[in-house]
């Protein structure tokens, strides 16, 4: 990246052109859903319906453990997919990916 003398006092945010706005919005929403859902305590602070003896309050939050894992994984895939495709100047081509860098394990 040519380090043209951009005034760097202002901010270090990514130029929006490198990350399509729609994807940013999707990632932000995916990440916000669990936070909003769990902060909204009045929506789940109740006893009924019970499940296997657990009041709703408890099993509902356990469900969010899995829901959050799924939502965050989707956000991860979107972000990684985008970062892979980001065009890099030849001088900064990424070295062969190390095996730990993939989405598999």
């Amino acid at each position, binding site marked *: 990246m040519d380090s043209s003398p951009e005034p760097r006092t202002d901010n*270090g945010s990514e130029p929006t052109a490198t990350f399509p706005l729609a994807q940013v919005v999707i990632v932000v929403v995916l990440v916000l859903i669990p936070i909003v859902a769990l902060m909204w305590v009045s929506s789940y602070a109740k006893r009924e319906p019970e499940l296997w003896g657990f009041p709703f309050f408890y099993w509902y939050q356990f469900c969010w453990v899995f829901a959050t894992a799924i939502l965050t994984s989707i956000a991860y895939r979107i972000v990684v997919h985008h970062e892979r495709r980001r065009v890099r100047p030849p001088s*900064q081509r990424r070295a062969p990916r190390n095996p730990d*860098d993939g989405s598999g394990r």
Partner: protein
Amino acid sequence: MIAAATTVDHSVNGVALTIVIILFLAVTVLGFLSMRWRHSGGGMHSLDEWGLGGRGFGTWITWFLLGGDLYTAYTFVAVPAAMFATGAVSGFFAVPYTIVVYPIIFVFMARLWSVSHTHGFVTPADFVKGRYGSRGLSLAVAITGILATMPYIALQLVGIQAVLEVLGLGGTGGKLAQDLPLLIAFAVLAAYTYSSGLRAPAAIAFVKDTLIYLVIIVAIVYLPSKVGGWHHVFDAAGEKFAKTNPATGKPVGSVIPTTASMWPYATLALGSAMALFMYPHSITAVLSSKSRNVIRRNASILPAYSFMLGLLALLGFVAIAAGTKPIGLDGQPNAQLVVPQLFEDNFPSWFAGVAFAAIAIGALVPAAIMSIAAANLFTRNIYRDFINPDATDAQEAKVSKVVSLLVKLGALAFVFTLDKTLALNFQLLGGVWILQTFPAIVFGLYTRWFHRWALLLGWAVAMVYGTITAYQQINPATGKHFGSSVGAIELIGKTGYIALTAFVINVIVAVVVTVVLRALRAPAGDDVTLPEDYRADAGDPRVKDLPELAS
């Protein structure tokens, strides 16, 4: 149906004690062997070697290290104790807390990884200094990190103490005999960290988590059915909490948050989640990973920890149904003992021993990681910046080791002076402080709009407000200060986690003062980082494997 333990037995449980000692020795040997593990040849004499394990950890090791931040005495001892004592609001908020933490770190931790690896930042204070060109702000972040880590370590000491006390170590006669379990816990921790740094905890994390999973699964499958099923467990808890607490005239607690306690529940969860990755030890774990996306991938697989945490929390209710009577060496009820006591009452001695070892090691490892991270912070950002700029690597490593010991002594002081009836409160108090570094660190990852002096002022106001407000919370039962971390939120007439209220004040001050300082054209300070530094990944030529101090 109910396994009542009406008489309290303080004699030594020989079988359990033997098992704890054997497992502990095995782990210690592993710790020493691990000093040679992945050894890059320089010995443990540079700070980078001792404190960051050489910074080359991949997904699985990072997963275990990060898990170590969550699976601590907080999970096994403090959260179930809070559930046992007063119910969902003071304990179960830990579940939404550990869920919400992943989306939060997903967003900003990759940027912190990248900028740290392009500039060789090892601590949050390093980043703040590079970003804002402000030694004062960097010092504030460093001091806060060290201060906030102490009560968190204190919680681990209380956890080890609880195990030793139930095992029957210590005596009821005299102050020294009563404090013996705590002093043993401290001595073991100190000896252990001093010798092997972060590599030991990383290796031991595998053993620890295996033991822990084993114990949790057995406990969760066996205990609820033994005491009459989950339905009965929740009924027994509801019955206990409906009684009136003589000290407050209100119900003892609640199984499901009431309208008044929804705000505390939500703010405790959110505040704790935002605070967790401001702790120096959490940041160390993140920076130890191999590439910027290891942390994001972890954020999508780590919630498995939250599930186990929720089940462990419910052991507090199981103990109510089982009629567990946690009585300390001083003859007073001590909720912190509830999980070890539950195991001792309901399992054969040998399995209780395995469980005790899991809890003790599970407190020891994070405590070691925390004290090392706090010591790194002191060495780099206070010793080197303000006391001895020309320090050699060997001097720095030595200072770090000594400071890690002092941090643990500070933790011990917290245990002796604060109200121990709710150990969870130690961690919450740490959160009140550490959350005040959030604006400088996290906002700084995205923008330089905030003025360094405004951030410093916001931090100072919030620290004072948070500390005073926390001090004013008096435990009605014991009359001690710092009795709770939930206080009134001014202006909106609700109650909530003091850390979050202080954080809002912090941000408001920072914004207002920034506007003023910008209007006055106050010098903004030099920023050594470039926008692209926040996106650099492993393989990028600018990314350093090791910080410059290793050279």
